[in-house]
């Protein structure tokens, strides 16, 4: 899951970036409102982690602009002002959740998963398709009574496909989900991960649509 981090403090931004990557997200980092607007315009994010005080303005203004444009992207606010009034202000401005600094990395990723789940309209934390039950919080799954473990990148590909089961996901989009802007993309990386996933889930679970991308196969009758 690609997550946009908008944070100007070097230490914290790096911590969030590295920490969320370790937790299975694909974080992108920007340090000011202007860069954030540009990144959001390009799209492709599952959620935004937004600091309130940024060098070129307030995170709340950025959020208000986003909501005014009709964007329902889940937003997690990070702020030092954990007065009730400020929390209310943040939520009323359109934030989906709120965390006061300093926070726990585990809590950041749990809250991110929760707001993404809500945005996708799912009640359960588990993603289910065709006999597979996927647990995003542990990057693991269960199929036919078997416990399955996935690497971070395998999980990213599977997560992207299971969000819209049966719908073709382009290879480019999968690459985007796999790698941040900062990382170099290996040309056959997606194929490699799909191959490994087929080994774990069965050859027919993921279908290749030649020249376009991949999709999850319709359930077995």
């Amino acid at each position, binding site marked *: 899951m690609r997550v946009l981090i908008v944070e100007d*403090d*070097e*230490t*914290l*931004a*790096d*911590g*969030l970036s*590295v*920490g969320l990557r*370790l937790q299975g997200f694909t974080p992108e980092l920007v340090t000011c409102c202007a860069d954030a607007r540009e990144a959001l315009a390009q799209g492709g994010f599952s959620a935004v982690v937004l*600091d*309130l*005080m940024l*060098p*070129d303005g307030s995170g709340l203004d950025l959020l208000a602009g986003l909501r005014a444009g009709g964007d329902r992207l889940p937003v997690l606010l*990070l*702020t*030092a*002002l954990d007065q009730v009034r400020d929390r209310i202000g943040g939520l009323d401005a359109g934030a989906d959740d709120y965390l*006061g*600094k*300093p*926070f*726990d*990395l*585990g809590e950041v990723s749990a809250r991110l998963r929760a707001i993404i789940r809500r945005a996708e309209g799912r009640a359960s934390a588990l993603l289910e398709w065709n006999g597979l039950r996927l647990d995003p919080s542990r990057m693991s799954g269960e199929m036919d009574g078997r416990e399955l473990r996935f690497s971070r990148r395998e999980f990213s590909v599977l997560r992207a496909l299971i969000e819209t089961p049966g719908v073709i996901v382009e290879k480019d989009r999968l690459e985007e989900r796999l790698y941040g802007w900062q990382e170099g993309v290996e040309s056959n990386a997606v194929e490699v991960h799909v191959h490994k996933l087929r080994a774990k889930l069965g050859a027919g679970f993921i279908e290749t649509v030649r020249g376009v991308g991949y999709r999850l196969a319709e359930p077995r009758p």
Partner: protein
Amino acid sequence: MSSIRTRLFVILLAATGVVWLSAVWWIQHSTRSEVEQVLDARLAEAAQMVSSLISDRRIDVASAGPVELNLPVPAAGSDYSRQLSCQIWSLDGALLGASASAPSGRLAAEQTGFSDSLVDGEAWRVYTMINEDLGLRVMVGDRLTVRERLVTDVVRGLLLPALAILPVLAALIWISVGRGLAPLDRMARALSARTADDLGPVSAGPLPREIRPMGAALDGLFARVAGAREREKSFTAFAAHELKTPLAGIKTQAQIAAMAPDEATRRQALARIEAGVARTDRMVRQLLELAAVDGAPEGGGEIVDMTRLVSDLGQDMRRLATERDVQLRLEMAPELFCRIPDPVLPAVALRNIVENAVLASPPGSEVVVEGVARDARITLSVLDRGPGIPEAERARVTERFFRGAGAPAGGSGLGLAIAQVAVERLGGRLGFEARTGGGEAVQIVLPCAGPVHESGRASEGRDTATRS
């Protein structure tokens, strides 16, 4: 008298009274002179009439002793009836005739025309004329008390209704003053009904012209209080953000170090923790400095050797400069003594400015600290070759927590704000100027009673510096 209503009431009532009394006085005066003229004319007329009656022989005075004269008098029954009295004397001094109301004494002496006289203890106004044909002296007079009563009656006629009206007038004044002051009452009620957070303008509604200045002054005060409160609130918010953000960073990095899958990630996280702690430390130091300079006394104080202060500072900053590969050069005139409230003020101001200059300088460049004394002023300049402060931001760089778009990362936005407050406490001025050839020149101009070079005070200054 603290009540405006009572005061206005008394003033208005007194003023009305004074106006009334002056009118009465004036009317009394003019009535008196008017009455005198009219009655004098009547006296003269009556005398003429008596004289001509005698000449026509309608009154025979030659044959008889004192006779009763019946003169035309105002309608009987009036208070003023029979007020005229007449006496006819022969030129040799015998009383030939007199009216019934005439006194027994002679009304006037020898002279003709108008005269005042005292007859039988009563004051009289008399007109005397001589009838040459018959050799008679005709005197017609009236009592002055009667005239006086006339005037008094007129005045009484004025005063009595006035006195009757007075309570009504007082009530009217009291009510209208109350009405006139009602907007003040309304304003007071509106103000007292406000909550502590309500700092909106008073003059939102229509105010009478007289209290509009007060409304405007209150609005101004409210705006200033709201501004101060807003600054305080944003200071707290900023301070919370500036302290909690690096703490959040440190905590996150610590968690990463704990769960790092490989050695490189762990080592990097630990390095970031160290940097974060250093930054937080600087932030805390600056917040404490800000609190210290905010609370520093103004005026008075001790004599400090600025040259020495700057060289101590140079020692402190040398490590940071070396880390950044920046040359720090001090060019101080010797023995710059200055009496200042607290030596911590110039030290804190300079340290923050020099720190900023070093952090903004490109590696291999030079930061110069100059100090000169001129015209009872000490000027300390910090010159760097960094990118300089953008023109648009120059006015805002001393705002607390203001960080320019191009400011070096990791700054708190407090350094120059601290310098500004410290220099203000010293009664000096902080100036920023672009340097020719690039970079920024920051100047602190401190007023001094003149650099002190005499041995006595100089050594005092040196002692102070040594002690501190």
